[in-house]
């Protein structure tokens, strides 16, 4: 092979056995990049720009939002719901992930199936399941009346609590899986070392397992939080109009009132606040890791 052909190959294909050349890397990424730009980034930019460009450059749409306390109530409710759902999913999900990471064989498979199978069922179905529990003639009301605890069916559906429960249940796998992955990545001899050095089982968990699983907790929490902010079907069906969340509001603005600039302004606000929270969260966590678990 000629020296020139050789240098072209080297330029285009591989720098070393472990690393492709820059040219090849970009060539391989390009199709996806083009698709993302054309079908995702551009429409979003176009849509969001409506909030300040329609009909001419203006901040009127934002001003309108700031004026309406109704919007603020919904925004606040959205973030409150996100926070509560994240905390509930964490409290329920961590023990499951821990169990999953620490059992073997059939049990591990069974738990994994319970966690993952619901992901294959549509969110709509998983939402409607809650009617069977919480509806006027649902299981809980029937049981409570049968036992004589109440004599009128309680209003369980169309409450914020019902939304929290349903969303937590739906988002639980998203919390469990990253935590499970980070727990499995902890070398088992670390626990043994800690125990051999004098830590009790609780001490091993507190000082070794928990801190080392925090990246998984962070990933799960951020995912659940962000996904819950955009939840649409579940709050609409289970929460009803009195528990409206921002995704429903945006949809109504766009489809019912055909006020696209207003919908764009709301979307922008949602996006900015979400990004800010994620960045702050990331910062806090990284700092925590650098400082270790401290004394």
């Amino acid at each position, binding site marked *: 092979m000629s020296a020139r052909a050789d240098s072209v190959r080297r330029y285009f294909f591989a720098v070393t056995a472990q690393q492709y050349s820059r040219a090849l890397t970009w060539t391989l990424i390009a199709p996806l990049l083009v698709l993302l730009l054309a079908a995702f980034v551009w429409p979003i930019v176009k849509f969001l720009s409506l909030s300040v460009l329609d009909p001419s450059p203006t901040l009127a749409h934002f001003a309108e939002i700031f004026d309406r306390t109704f919007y603020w109530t919904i925004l606040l409710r959205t973030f409150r719901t996100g926070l509560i759902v994240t905390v509930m999913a964490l409290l329920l999900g961590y023990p499951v992930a821990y169990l999953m990471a620490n059992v073997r064989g059939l049990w591990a498979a069974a738990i994994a199936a319970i966690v993952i199978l619901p992901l294959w069922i549509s969110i709509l179905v998983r939402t409607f399941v809650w009617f069977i529990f919480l509806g006027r003639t649902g299981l809980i009301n029937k049981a409570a009346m049968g036992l004589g605890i109440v004599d009128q069916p309680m209003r369980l559906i169309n409450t914020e609590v019902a939304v929290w429960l349903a969303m937590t249940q739906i988002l639980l796998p998203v919390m469990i899986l990253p935590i499970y992955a980070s727990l499995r990545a902890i*070398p088992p*001899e*670390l626990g*043994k*070392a*800690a*125990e*051999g*050095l*004098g*830590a*009790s*089982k609780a*001490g091993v968990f507190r*000082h*070794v397992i928990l*801190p*080392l699983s925090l990246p998984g907790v962070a990933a799960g929490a951020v995912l659940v939080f962000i996904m819950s902010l955009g939840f649409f079907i579940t709050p609409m069906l289970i929460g009803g109009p009195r528990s409206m969340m921002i995704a429903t509001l945006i949809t109504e603005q766009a489809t019912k009132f055909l006020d696209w600039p207003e919908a764009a302004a709301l979307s922008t606000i949602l996006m900015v606040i979400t990004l800010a929270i994620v960045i702050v969260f990331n910062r806090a966590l990284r700092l925590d*890791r650098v400082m*270790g*678990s401290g*004394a």
Partner: protein
Amino acid sequence: MNAISTDMVATGAPVAIRGLEKRYGAVVAVHQVDLEVKAGEFVALLGPSGSGKTTILMTIAGFETPTAGSIGIGGRDVTVLPPNRRNIGMVFQRYALFPHMTVAENIGFPLRMRKIGGAEARTRVEAALAMVRLEGYGDRRTSQLSGGQQQRVALARALVYNPPLLLMDEPLGALDKNLREEMQLEIKRLQQRVGATVVYVTHDQSEALTMADRIAVMDGGRIQQYGPPREIYDSPSNAFVAGFIGETNFIDGHVAGGAKPVFAVDGSEQKVALEASGAPREGPSRLAIRPELIRLGDPAGSELSGTVEEMIYGGGTVACHVRVGNGAVVMARVPAADAIGVRLGDRAGLVWQADRAKVFPR
């Protein structure tokens, strides 16, 4: 502050293992093991892979519960005590340093678990760092250290609270040869300084021979021989130990004759006189002789002789492979000067002191 806190003198605890047995389902990992370790003694568990070394260590540490038998540390029966209550120091093959803690936090971990904090903990951590010659590394992250440094941190962490018993499972297995030899001396030096009892698992015989006061040679879940390195090397008590430690020639044959026993080599007419006092049993046996104990002699005047098949030059010595019968090739490691003039295909006599050969039943 406590006056004794900075000096690292601990007294070792004796270890007594009696009738230890460990099964995993149908697999018997350890069979009826008895092992006494004196206070301050350095004992190596040496054996091939799967021989049960780690299992024994883990039952001493408390991570495995024996199927039968008992473990005593410092005169106290600890068979059912959890690991964190046994007051042991542990060092693992892959260091097992906590990646989310700095070097100093790692070393301070056992102190924290014992509710020792503040100035005393700091002084002790500093002393432990100095002991493994890593002064000034306290604030580093463990990932910023070389393998040898990480293992020294693991050692400091295990020694910082003066445990009377230190357990190590192939602590140098992940290091390269030079570093390993350096660390062997360092560990030995530290152990002598702090006086702790050490049980040390290795499958590297030179490591065991260099470091240990006594070696327990293991195979198939049993202790094959337990004694000082010299005794293990010079008087192996069975063919496994003779073959596992150092280089050994095995010659198959039969022992015959009462008062003046001889060893008849299978597949040849040759006979070798044996030491009568060893009183080897008559019948099929196996003779073991170390290559460096054999000299080359005049084929006519020697009891055993054969054809030189191979000569491998090794600096100061030459390894001569001599075929003495149908099946048996004996290797003699002789000074290079003695091999001058010996050619491939020559006949050579093989001579050794009768009492240096061991005969084991077959």
